[in-house]
């Protein structure tokens, strides 16, 4: 199958699936599925950053929170449609990530990871103390100062589905572009890539900003569906843990892996909920699954499954699949 044909099939197939199911499913189910799509989206972003870019950020929850709060602040105070802000806020977060990235890239490897986590904590603390953001009490979504008419979950779910597909197709195109080639080269050796003429720092910054914008888009979509946002929720480390769990279980550095990982995460979580297991037990089960999977299949589920199904023709096909 040619590359473009595969992309088209992805868009039409999953696009129509998400539109049709948005018409058929109950609103509780739609809410859950929207969250699933958002987690898959966030995982793709963490995977892009850490799996392809080698930047293991422990602070991506900051961008989720920024996306959510950005949406609330601008929608509540502007009078412009919420949908506009769902598009604009992630772009603004992507731009705002640039100076943060320039600062954080002064830190190397593990220090970068921890630095990002600290930055996220600082941001959460600032939000929690800011009057205009409702402090620890949070904000209610009131576009233009009025409460939202009707429930948006159908269209939100379809929107999240389309965004996820757009993201996957976009990532495929990106990884097949000259920029993607630079990224894949950097993954095998930054000094070698630099010596081949790649502007390593600029490429890293660009990926950092894209991942920030993607996480913000996920946050904006998710908190649109909740109609309420609070700092302890929006900036919580659980966002990060979900992203990492899903990427690592599914297969870091592959595009299909995080999708598979999301399915596992949600299946386990919903089973735990229906069995009445509480937060603590739930995380112990999750941790056990993660460790067990990685002991048996160190590269994650998808690479193992794929080698059973068929052998990729090239190493590049393997990395992009």
């Amino acid at each position: 199958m040619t590359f473009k044909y595969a992309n088209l099939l992805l868009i039409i197939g999953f696009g129509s699936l998400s539109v049709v199911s948005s018409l058929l499913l109950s609103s509780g189910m739609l809410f859950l599925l929207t969250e699933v799509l958002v987690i898959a989206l966030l995982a793709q972003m963490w995977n892009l950053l850490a799996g392809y870019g080698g930047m293991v950020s422990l602070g991506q929850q900051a961008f989720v929170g920024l996306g959510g709060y950005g949406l609330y602040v601008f929608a509540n105070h502007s009078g412009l449609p919420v949908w506009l802000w769902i598009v604009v806020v992630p772009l603004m977060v992507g731009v705002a990530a640039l100076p943060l990235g320039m600062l954080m890239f002064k830190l190397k490897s593990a220090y970068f990871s921890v630095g990002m986590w600290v930055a996220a904590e600082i941001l959460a603390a600032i939000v929690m103390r800011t009057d205009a953001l409702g402090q620890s009490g949070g904000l209610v979504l009131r576009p233009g100062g009025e409460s939202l008419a009707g429930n948006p979950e159908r269209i939100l779910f379809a929107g999240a589905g389309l965004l996820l597909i757009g993201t996957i197709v976009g990532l495929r195109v990106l990884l097949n572009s000259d920029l993607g080639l630079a990224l894949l080269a950097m993954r095998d050796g930054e000094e070698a890539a630099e010596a081949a003429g790649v502007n390593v720092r600029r490429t890293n910054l660009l990926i950092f900003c894209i991942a920030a914008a993607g996480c913000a888009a996920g946050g904006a979509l998710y908190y649109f569906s909740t109609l309420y946002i609070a700092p302890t929720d929006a900036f919580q480390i659980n966002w990060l843990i979900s992203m990492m769990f899903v990427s690592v279980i599914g297969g870091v550095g592959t595009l299909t892996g995080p999708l598979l990982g999301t399915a596992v995460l949600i299946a386990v979580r919903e089973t735990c909920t229906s069995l009445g297991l509480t937060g603590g037990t739930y995380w112990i089960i999750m941790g056990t699954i993660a460790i067990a999977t990685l002991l048996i299949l160190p590269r994650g589920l998808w690479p193992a499954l794929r080698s059973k199904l068929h052998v990729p023709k090239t190493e590049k096909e393997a990395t992009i699949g």
Partner: protein
Amino acid sequence: MLKTVGISKSFSGVPAADDVSLSLQAGERVGVIGPNGAGKSTLLGLLLGTVLPDRGQILLDGDDVTRLSPHQRVSGGIARAAQIPMTFHRLSVSDNVRVPAVHGAGLRGREAVEWVDEVLEMCGLAASAKVAAGQLGLLSRKRLELAKAIATRPKVLLLDEVAAGLTEPEIETIIHMVETLSEGRAIMWVEHIPFALRSVCERLIVMDKGRKILDGPFAHVWDDPVLQEIYMGVPDDNLS
């Protein structure tokens, strides 16, 4: 075209480059020899920008490039084949060459594809274009490292022991490649193999303990007693 003025670099107090001044003219082919640890790789690293000097200046076509990062110097026309091949092990051989063709030489579209094919042909890698670089043997990896350097279309090509560790017939093929590649560009070739340097270079630099000891016409430097002195203790067959 490439010039250093008194560049020095120490690693934890031990000088790896000590007040080195040299200049390289367009099209000139210079050999560099010296015992292990003499600072030859460090010198090439300083020229490419992967090592930053403590003191001194590096000029490319009269412009100060001392503080420029490697990718900027690559755009300016400097390229290096590293002593330990730095290939992209998960990418195919042709993608390995495409990285410098696109990002180093700045080629796009058809032009890039054709140039990659040409470089692969030139370096004897056309048959393994689709193989992942990590699966190559030593000779092919050395060829690929050379191919990556050449793909940036450099004016100055720095070669760091590209023939080391190979058998004599393999060395012959590398010599032949370097001769082909040196067409129209300056070359600085670090190597311990005298017959390889002799067949390509008209000038020879000798380094020891970070210092440039000798620099001049090949035959002249080769017969200098100082060179024999530096290599005392090294078996004779290594030198002749």
